[in-house]
């Protein structure tokens, strides 16, 4: 295969089309009888009470933020991991320093209580 991305692009397109085909088949074959009770939103068997908006905990945002920082860190670590076989030993130590700095960050947010789910 000349360019791997051509195959991958085709794979992505076909991979998205197959579920679409399943849904289209269902849309053709399935009955469609809407009535207001069926279409109302589900709330354990009762009518919906209150606005359709729930108190969004700030905790979700803190976890997403911590995830972002560590995700970028692991992206940096991938090239480092690849080069270990061909570079001298101090390259491994460089990576260890990198990880230790960020583990210090993890320890900081742990102690600040940002990782507790209140």
């Amino acid at each position, binding site marked *: 295969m000349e360019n*791997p991305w051509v195959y991958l692009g085709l*794979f992505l397109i076909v991979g998205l089309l197959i579920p679409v085909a399943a849904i289209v088949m269902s849309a053709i074959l399935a009955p469609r009888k809407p009535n207001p009770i069926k279409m109302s939103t*589900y709330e354990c068997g009762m009518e919906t009470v209150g606005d*359709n908006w729930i108190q969004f905990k700030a905790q979700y945002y803190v*976890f997403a933020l911590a995830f972002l920082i560590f*995700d970028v860190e692991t992206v940096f670590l991938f090239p480092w*991991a690849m080069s270990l076989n061909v570079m001298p*030993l101090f390259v491994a130590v460089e990576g260890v320093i990198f990880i230790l700095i960020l583990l210090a960050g993890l320890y900081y947010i742990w102690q600040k209580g940002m990782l507790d*789910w209140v």
Partner: protein
Amino acid sequence: MEFLSDPIKVIYEWLMLTFTGWSWAGWVSSLVINLLAIVGFISAIMVLDILLVWVERKVVARFQDRLGPNRVGPFGIFQPFPDIIKLILKEDITPEGADRVPFNLAPILSLGSVLFLWAVVPLASRIYGVDLNVALLYLVAAGSIGTLSIIMAGWASNNKYALLGAYRMVANMISYEIPMVVALLIPTVLAGSMSLKTITEAQSTNGGVWFVLVSPLGALIFLIAAIAELGRSPFDLNEGESEIVSGYHIEYSGMKFGLFYAGELLHAFTFGGFVAALFFGGWHGPWAEQYPLLGAFYFVAKAMFGYWVIMWVKYTVPRIRIDHMLAFNWKFLTPLAFALLMVTAVVHRVLLDVPTWLYVAGMFLSNVILVWITVEVLRAQARREREAKASAQLAAAD
């Protein structure tokens, strides 16, 4: 005979000859052959997915000391087909106020994000889709598309419970992605490449050892993080039927729900396949290099074994609460994974040029020492907590 030793090349050349015999241009026939291969492969995976429904139901039945489906066909093996037909024929209810485009796009992206992964998995030494040199990061990228589809599903359902379930599921999935990616870094360090084909070759050709022997703790961390990524028990608070009624699935019916369900099963099997490819040598086995079809059979068998382990954990262990889940990840699994990565990198680099048995022994020993240190730290912490509680009780008793 040549078919057995290199099936893909033989089929490709035969089709090329046929198509150019019909006087099609070179690139057109190449494109058509690629399309045929992709459609065939994805259809095979979907058939496997349907079979997995039967496997899941039989295995859960055996774990729960009952028989499972045994009416439709011998051993109930045709059971998934009535299931699929039922799901197609059910009415597709879109709740009022739901956002149409994300509502319909979410199940497609959810199943699609799992299908994308099979492009880079090497089934045998000469059967693979694409030898992508960043295959492990591609795995993480496909996972992030899955995360996005869950938020879309929860949001577009216009339902409090769906939104709550989606938030929790996404918080869970993104938290457990960190130890999973760090556990993925360990085969990268050991093999020196991110490409799955190179990693499986490093375990099989010229005296390589399976990475599970070199880094068993890495395999364990990857397995735990993968089970959490899948949203399966014991980490399935987000779709607990008794608590928030199926989470972000609530408003989906018919084939869209079927796509979510099939996507989840296929995702579990795919992760079984990744555990097999990364740690258990992929397609490696006796005579796998000469007969790639035998290698593919070994790979599917190992992936089934990984899937069986995931199911075993699901049907044995009770559900964990969400704050325990997240505390387990951020306070235990992430530091442990990073410590393992540091130790693996340094020990691997130091032991790079020694004979194989010494290398395996050294790496295994470093893993054992790390586990021992972890257990000691946990034990000291538990002792401290017990003493603090005992002294608090004594102080309260006075």
